């Protein structure tokens, strides 16, 4: 089976976010770019499955929509263990645009399992996975917290209200993965970093698609008010502050 992990190139999660041009664009100056954490966990799970079932999984690819500056992020994925990378050479304009580009990739080179992280840590769209499944006509499972092989069959688990749902699913399928899919991402080894030098990184041109949304303006969250500590015994003071200061009761 062939697995495709779809990735976003996002600012390091500790980045101090700034905007430029009347808050109309993100200031990328000095930003360190990383694999979107959920996508990195999806890739890690794919690698774990391949390590445990080498006869079953022949290849793990990663795909990313972005310009040439995103290639270090793809090569990091190759260093961690992906077999090959695919970059769609265009700016990721919005969720639909990205999903449409990835759908074109899937149409041109079939995969059995497509994994997407539940959201990207930059725009938090949570939309690409579902849209991609629809555009590519794939079975889809959302909020997947476990992906395993049991007796040669793939078994998915999903978090549902008050419990867990176990699914069997026909390939090809797309799974949107979330917390629980695996514990922590892999650190690339020296051998992996060296091997990444010669792994294929295919660049494909974008298909003609239009973004469906337009970013109008960004704004940073307001400054958090200072925290007031109240003695647990002093319920009167708590009620007083909630009533007179916070005005919520």
């Amino acid at each position, binding site marked *: 089976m062939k697995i495709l992990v779809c990735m976003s190139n996002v600012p390091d999660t500790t980045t101090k976010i700034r905007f430029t041009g009347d808050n109309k664009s993100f200031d990328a100056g000095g930003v360190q770019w990383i694999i979107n954490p959920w996508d990195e966990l999806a890739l890690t799970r794919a690698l774990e499955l391949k390590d445990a079932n080498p006869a079953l999984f022949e290849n793990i690819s990663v795909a990313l929509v972005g310009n040439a500056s995103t290639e*270090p992020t793809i090569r990091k994925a190759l260093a961690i263990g992906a077999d090959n990378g695919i970059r769609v050479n265009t700016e990721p304009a919005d969720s639909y645009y990205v999903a449409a580009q990835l759908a074109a990739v899937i149409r041109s080179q079939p995969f059995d399992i497509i994994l997407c992280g539940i959201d990207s840590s930059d725009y938090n769209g949570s939309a690409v996975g579902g849209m991609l499944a629809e555009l590519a006509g794939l079975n889809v499972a959302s909020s997947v917290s476990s992906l395993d092989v049991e007796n040669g069959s793939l078994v998915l688990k999903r978090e549902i209200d008050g419990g867990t749902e176990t699914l069997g699913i026909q390939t090809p399928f797309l799974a949107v993965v979330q917390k629980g899919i695996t514990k922590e991402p892999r*650190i690339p*080894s*020296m*051998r992996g*970093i*060296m091997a990444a030098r010669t792994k294929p990184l295919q660049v494909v041109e974008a298909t003609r698609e239009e973004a469906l949304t337009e970013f109008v303006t960004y704004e940073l969250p307001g400054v958090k008010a200072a925290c007031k500590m109240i003695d647990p015994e002093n319920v009167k003071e708590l009620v007083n502050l909630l009533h007179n200061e916070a005005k919520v009761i």
Partner: protein
Amino acid sequence: MNFEFTEEQIMIQQAARDFAQRELIHDVIERDTKAIFPEAHIKKLAELGFLGMMVDPKYDGGGMDTISYVLAMEEISKIDASVSVIMSVNNSLVCYGIEKWGTEEQKEKYLKPLARGEKIGAFLLSEPEAGSDATHQRTTAVDMGDHYLVNGTKNWITNANSASTYILIAQTNPELKHKGINAFLVDKNSPGISLGPHEDKMGMRSSDTHSVMFNDVKVPKENRIGADGFGFSFAMKILEGGRIGIASQALGIASGAMELAIKYSKERKTFGTEICNHQAIAFKLADMAVKVENARNLCLKAAWMKDNGGNYSLYGSMAKQYAADIAMEVTTEAVQIHGGYGYVKEYHVERLMREAKLTQIYEGTSEVQKIVISRSILKD
């Protein structure tokens, strides 16, 4: 002139940072307090390829350059210098020595498992009465025709217990003085080798340091490294490279302490404001930043010279002397900025201060580095 790191160098720096944050920080204080060897941590470090990261891939190494090594050593030393000294000894003393001057058979038998990190190495030069003055080796390796017979004691040996392979420096022909010294590959399990007790050190307490006693230890002839009498020159050449490793360790200790001091100074309030807003503290931080940046540049210059075939001896000594001395200064000031909190273990800076002290002493004291530097600049 280009000060930019390559994509791979940045990836290695990040990998070392992630490793230190994920695997080392959570129990570093306990291991330091109880002097516990970081066995599981070293195993993971080996799996990632950091223990033989500069060795040619044909001998199972990582094939990375010295710049990458400096970056990795800095990141790991920020969190745990006991782990980074094990990494430094294995990379720059043991693996480098065998790769550069060993025979193909020696590389096959000894270098490969060391480069994979399956085995750890130790470098046995210092003696009870010969540390900086390495020409006066009392340990003897007498040529018995079909083998060498080794007797003597080596002191302050890092990895003495955890290592499987020793590089031993010993005197074969005392009448030839330092030109009678040889270097040997010795299996730690050889009959006649015994260890002194674990040294109860001030810092880097979780690395294992012992004296090693040799009592009629037979070493096969084929285990000598290089020509007869090459041992002293071999040891000096190895230490030239080793200094880049320890300089980077000192750099990491300093930059780690500085990062903690900056963080703390933005959180701790006195007189109604964060202490970083007091000029007394802000200027200390500024001094730290300049020293750390200078040390980093010296380390990288020495590494660059080594990678590009230059004479890096002078720069390695400059890097080591400067980085070690500023590590002591920066860590002391980091404790000062933390005040009382800096003096307790929970805040890490007192440990970094104890670790910094050793970098001024081992692999050539700061004073020995000044001998090397002054001789070099006075030569012409």
